[in-house]
């Protein structure tokens, strides 16, 4: 599974310091959350989708595979609003369902926004290694090492937990346990969650004791295996990403497709 998340091309966005990138993406998230016009959200979705395919450094099919999840995100964000949202200009109604002009466009707007969020999140994940992220957070943003090394260690413990899940499932099926319809659903916590959790907690504890002995949790004066410098790639990342958001907002202003106002009832 880990080899899936290795980029084939390394570009400026991969080389940018995660301690710069993370606040930048949180800022982009804030800008997108505060976007209440459908034109702006539409262009934000388009621009960041394009940027995701251009700058992620992954082959086209992999990016497309990951981006296919956006369809579901779009549907889950927009459908409920389209069918049950408030609105005065009703197009169609049946029982509790009432589709109005306002709720329809508001639903689309939410869908576009969820695509924009998804693209931004995926762009960050695909261009940042978690080791790089936590080293940068420790060195640049003064995150306490005990949190950083715990998170990094946990990602290494993850495959073991997945292996155990597979072994447990095989062992149970060899013995013919866990069959029968309703009773097995109730026994699911006992059959799977308990042994997996118990084993993982014991392993985490052993690992943590070893890490404490080796002073992984030492604060203040310590050295780091990887350095986390600020380079000109960070300038490029700031310029390109803020330029992309600015371009989307400018396009929405110059070439509005829907030309509708604020999507909320009482802004």
């Amino acid at each position, binding site marked *: 599974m880990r080899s899936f998340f290795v980029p084939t091309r390394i570009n400026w966005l991969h080389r940018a310091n995660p301690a710069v990138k993370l606040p930048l993406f949180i800022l982009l998230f804030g800008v997108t959350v505060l976007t209440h016009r459908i034109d702006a959200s539409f262009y934000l979705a388009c621009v960041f989708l394009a940027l995701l395919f251009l700058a992620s450094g992954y082959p086209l099919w992999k990016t497309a595979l990951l981006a296919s999840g956006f369809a579901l995100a779009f549907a889950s964000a927009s459908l409920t*609003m389209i069918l049950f949202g408030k609105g005065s200009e009703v197009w169609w109604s049946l029982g509790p369902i009432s589709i109005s002009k306002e709720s329809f466009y508001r639903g689309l707007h939410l869908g576009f926004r969820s695509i924009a969020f998804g693209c931004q999140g995926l762009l960050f994940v695909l261009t940042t290694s978690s080791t790089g992220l936590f080293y940068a957070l420790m060195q640049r943003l003064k995150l306490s090492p005990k949190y950083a090394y715990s998170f990094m260690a946990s990602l290494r413990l993850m495959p073991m937990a997945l292996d155990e899940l597979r072994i447990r499932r095989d062992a149970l099926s060899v013995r013919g346990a866990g069959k029968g319809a309703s009773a097995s659903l109730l026994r699911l916590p006992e059959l799977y969650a308990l042994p997996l959790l118990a084993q993982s907690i014991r392993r985490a504890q052993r690992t943590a004791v070893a890490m404490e002995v080796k002073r992984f949790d030492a604060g203040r004066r310590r050295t780091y295996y990887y350095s986390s410098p600020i380079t000109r790639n960070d300038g490029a990342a700031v310029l390109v990403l803020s330029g992309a958001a600015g371009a989307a907002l400018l396009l929405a202003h110059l070439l509005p497709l829907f030309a509708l106002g604020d999507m909320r009832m009482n802004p």
Partner: protein
Amino acid sequence: MSAKRTEAASRRRGLTLTDVLVTVVVSLVLGVVYHLWASVSSLAGLLFIQSDELVYGMWFAASTLAFLLIRKPGVALIAEIAAAHLEIAFGSAYGIQLLLYSVLQGLAAELVFAAFRYRNTSAVAAGLAGVAAAAGSLLADIYYGYVAEYATWLILFKYSLRAVSSFVIAGYLMYGLAKLLERAGVTQSLRPVERKEYDALDG
């Protein structure tokens, strides 16, 4: 003796690397459960309108389970963030907003445990923390999903279902799981040592 006591007290209050790693790993295992739960949730969604809210409480389970096991301040928040981190790290289509949700939900659950001064580890307290996490998710939904623009009956229906499900799943179910883990004997070394246990040694 008093020096030893203060050392023990400071160890009790702060989080050690062991506490953090165990918390993160607990939410990691629950993260695997979440992946399976996503299909349960979409199946449950076919029953009636918003019926997937019936199983929504599972998404708050990491914070309550971690607190019931470790019983220290801060654990509920870290558990929520760790669960979100796992989802994000494996390329979820819901990127950074998971971080926002996790912080709000974790803080809300943390507030409930803090209101009980981190002493109450009953199923009811865990259930209330689950309900608080649901309220935190409502706050995020208002900004992220404009839920305030839904028809009023739908808002009430959706969030009361979510609150009930949080109380049952994040509260009672996780309490039961924590009890099972206690019986299996994995929790003894996790919990902070209490004053009366030192006193028992003195006497």
